[in-house]
């Protein structure tokens, strides 16, 4: 079992961010976490890392991350790009070597980064910056990969490339997103979150009118694609 949580709760002062979350994630599963701003998605990732001390029972890769920091050796975390100090004069090579891992040229080849090593990270496009962060995370050979909004400011082609790469990763993956559509066919299960766990399962089980209303407080049309997956149609609201 990669993650096991029972009655997991976290509050920022008096403001509840997560309330009584109970769920299990198997080894090797690919999970997408969806919800509006302030739903607790990033908070959940930080609780799994042990950076925020949540209440309740929590086991990540067999460790309680709140007590045992060894679990961090087995986890890679890709933060939101907005949290980076992009003005620092750092080469791609320097960013990649920050985690004290050896450069893996196969991963760099796959992410088309080999010829970008001497370039400044701040001069790359958003898509390539994201590739660098993912490459850095993958070089650690993690058992659990956590990604926080990896598609923000990333064009469609790069989104596809990132999904392709993630599909080949031999690890449990939890990705926090706003738009599930680029990754829907690749994920095993979807977690709908709005402080509480609204639904957790396959797309056809999770994307239901009542669940979407609970999460987003507005009606979001749902359509079925050729492969039979239900997709939320964001941006086409019906009040």
């Amino acid at each position, binding site marked *: 079992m990669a993650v096991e949580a029972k009655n997991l709760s976290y509050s920022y002062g008096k403001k509840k961010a997560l309330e009584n979350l109970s769920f299990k994630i198997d080894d090797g599963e690919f999970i997408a976490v969806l919800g509006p701003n302030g739903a607790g998605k990033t908070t959940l990732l930080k609780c799994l*890392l042990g*950076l925020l001390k949540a209440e309740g029972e929590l086991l990540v890769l067999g460790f309680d991350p709140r007590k045992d*920091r060894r679990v*961090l*050796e087995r*986890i890679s*975390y*890709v*933060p*939101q790009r907005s*949290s*980076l*100090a992009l*003005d*620092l*004069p*750092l*080469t791609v090579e*320097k*960013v990649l070597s*920050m*985690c*004290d891992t050896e450069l893996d040229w196969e991963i760099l080849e796959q992410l088309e980064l080999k010829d970008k090593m001497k370039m*400044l990270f701040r001069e790359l496009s958003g898509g390539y910056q994201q590739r660098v*962060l993912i490459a850095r995370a993958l070089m650690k050979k993690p058992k659990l990969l*956590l990604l926080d909004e990896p598609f923000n400011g990333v064009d469609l082609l790069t989104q596809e490339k990132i999904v392709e790469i993630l599909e080949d990763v031999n690890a449990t993956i939890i990705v926090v997103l706003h738009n599930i559509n680029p990754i829907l066919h690749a994920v095993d299960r979807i977690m709908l979150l709005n402080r509480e766990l609204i639904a957790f399962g396959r797309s056809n089980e999770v994307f239901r009118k009542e669940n979407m209303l609970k999460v987003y407080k507005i009606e979001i049309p749902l359509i079925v694609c050729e492969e039979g997956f239900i997709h939320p149609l964001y941006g086409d609201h019906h009040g």
Partner: protein
Amino acid sequence: MVEIFLALILISLLISISGNLAVFRKASFLIASVSHSALAGVALSLLLTSLGFEQDYFLLATLFAIAFALLASLTSRFSDIDTGVAISFALSMAIAVVFLSLIRGISAKIWAFLFGEILLVTEQDLIYLTFSTILVILLFGLLYNKFIFFLFDPEGAKASGINPKLLDIILFAIIATSVVAVIRSVGAILAYSIFIAPSAIAKEFAQSVKQSLIITFGITLISLMLGISVSLIFPVSASALAALIASTLYIVVFSLRRLKK
């Protein structure tokens, strides 16, 4: 003359490391805050000395500077770095003014710490500078990779097991130590421009952090040497001239860059 040149090298090294750390940490104003905290320590040492309790300025200035730098670091955890530094700045300045107002008849000494004088560096100052430079280089060298990781990607650094609070405290302590070491030479008021302007220029043009350190070192050393050279011809403070050169260079460089765009 050899002593002065050695002092300039050591000052430039300290400013190169601490100026870059402050700029990368987006805590440039911390330099002003720390230099005025150091001034409070200096004022206390002068007050004690005037009362018959002979005190060297360095220890008290270092204690005050580190204490207020840590206060800024702690306060910034509850709000943001600007607020943390501002609170620490206001408090340290108030204490400095209280001590200064109690001192009678030693305004020339206070003046020296407020505006500095590179040409009057004593053997004792050189010892403090050497000791501080070795300490700062050691700490910075040992923690270089961790500092860069933490400054670039604080969330990722935390997730990799780096203790951000401890690292931030060490970073602030390095800046405080550097400021105290150079306060006699560049002065509490002028420290801000001479620490920040070269690093801000370097950050824009450097292709790596190491290059940024080297460029900062170069700009600082040249500004100080030009300041001294001009002060030998005209009766003007060398540190004030150095600060003027560094700040003017910053304005010229960024104006030209803007015009080019």
